């Protein structure tokens, strides 16, 4: 094992340029893929944050008498997935609107009657905050006879989710492509090393070296390259992340932008994956070019 390791390290040194190119290529692939992963985990957090704030507004038909309100409220509360139901009278809604439109309040002043309906503001329990569930609940509420209309931040969130899913798909595709590219690069490096060492390999076989003895160093070499590439890729991403996030934190101090680096489990997983890339590239190359 120790001599395998020494031979592998010697190989890497002897083929310095080739090894450097391989390690850099793996590092770049890892960098791009993990940058994507970083973006997605953070975007996902933000989305969850938004979904938590999701409310359904249910507007009452005009002319429904006030004494029916508790009954309607109870009916809404009876639907599965509802956490809280808040009554907002049309007067209160009008007041909120005026507050929000302070500058343009003259427009509202011209209205001699409050055009807003009475409404219920409804929040959902955590497990019912996904797009589909919200839509389901909203449909149920809308079917109540005293409800005229429901409104929820569904449309834009859904569109956003769709775009996000598209991005995620693109991310997976890119991850796959970079994975294959990295495997290909390692395989190619090993192929070239096999080519430059073909005389040596042939002689090793003639003096009775086992396949394990011949192949071992190639595996160690490519796993070292994979590991180094992975560590460098993650390190570069981390440094870039620190630089950018310290700048961003100066300008924004919002809870919303509470971006985090990948979890240790995640980046260790990426480095493991990078080691696997090395192993796989080597395996493919040996299978193809080192027939016994």
């Amino acid at each position: 094992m120790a001599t395998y390791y020494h031979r592998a390290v010697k190989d890497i040194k002897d083929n310095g340029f080739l090894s450097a190119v391989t390690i850099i290529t793996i590092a770049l692939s890892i960098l791009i893929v993990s940058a994507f992963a970083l973006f997605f985990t953070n975007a996902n957090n933000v989305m969850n944050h938004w979904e938590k704030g999701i409310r359904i507004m249910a507007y009452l038909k005009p002319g429904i008498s006030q004494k029916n309100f508790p009954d309607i409220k109870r009916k809404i509360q009876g639907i599965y997935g509802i956490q809280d139901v808040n009554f907002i009278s049309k007067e209160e809604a009008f007041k909120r609107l005026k507050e929000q439109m302070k500058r343009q309040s003259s427009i509202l002043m011209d209205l001699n009657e409050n055009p807003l309906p009475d409404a219920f503001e409804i929040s959902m329990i955590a497990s019912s905050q996904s797009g589909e569930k919200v839509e389901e609940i909203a449909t149920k509420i809308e079917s109540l006879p005293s409800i005229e209309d429901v409104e929820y931040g569904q449309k834009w969130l859904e569109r956003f989710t769709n775009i996000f899913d598209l991005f995620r798909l693109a991310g997976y595709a890119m991850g796959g492509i970079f994975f294959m590219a990295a495997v290909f690069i390692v395989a190619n490096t090993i192929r070239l090393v096999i080519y430059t060492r073909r005389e040596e390999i042939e002689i090793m076989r003639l003096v009775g070296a086992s396949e394990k003895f011949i192949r071992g160093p190639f595996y160690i070499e490519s796993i070292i390259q994979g590991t180094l590439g992975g560590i460098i890729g993650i390190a570069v991403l981390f440094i870039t992340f620190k630089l950018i996030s310290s700048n961003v934190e100066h300008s924004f101090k919002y809870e919303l932008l509470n971006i985090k680096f990948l979890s240790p489990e995640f980046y260790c997983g990426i480095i493991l994956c990078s080691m696997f890339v090395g192993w796989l590239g080597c395996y493919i190359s040996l299978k193809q070019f080192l027939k016994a």
Partner: protein
Amino acid sequence: MIDGKDKSSIIQMFHVHKHYGSKKALIDINLNVSKNEFLFISGPSGAGKSTLLRLLYLGEPVSEGQVLVDGMNLSRISKKRIPFLRRKFGIIFQDYKLISTKTVFDNVALVLEASGKKRKFIEKKVRSVLRTVGIEQRINAPPHSLSGGEQQRVAVARAVVGVPKIILADEPTGSLDSDSADIILNLLKGFHTHGGTVIVATHDKELIRKAGGRILYLKQGRLLGPTPI
């Protein structure tokens, strides 16, 4: 017919044929080599001497017939066991086959590394073998910086370092002057005196005369016996 139990023989060939396409390199070879024999295989260029040696260490397979080496039937041996077969041999190749990117030391050490010996042992053993072939002072030189005779001595050192049972020497004195040839011959004789089996393929009559072992002649792929007719 196939008698693997014969204690005194280490190599047996039974009706061995070797063709390359339609070219017949060896025809119906029957050969028995005893333990601790010093055997010469001679004959004109192209007779099939190198081919015969190659069949013994499975450098290539026979086309027909059976080969037994130290109790192993070569037509039945699995790929995994080939390295074990080859470790029974120390081979001096016609073209030396030294690894050009390694030093003299590493070339010789390779045999011991491949059989899993300890670093310390390898260090000592390789030095002592290189001393006996008289090439100690070139231990860290690359092979191409050595003369033909020196390279041949390194090849001999590599052949004996693993303490094989059999040495196969293919034209071991090919391009050497008679003094260098004597050094090589003495090394082979030394190995033989310590109980090893030696097979030398050569057309160097001088070498055969000096060594005085059994001779078999090959001609156009056929084994003739002790006379070249």
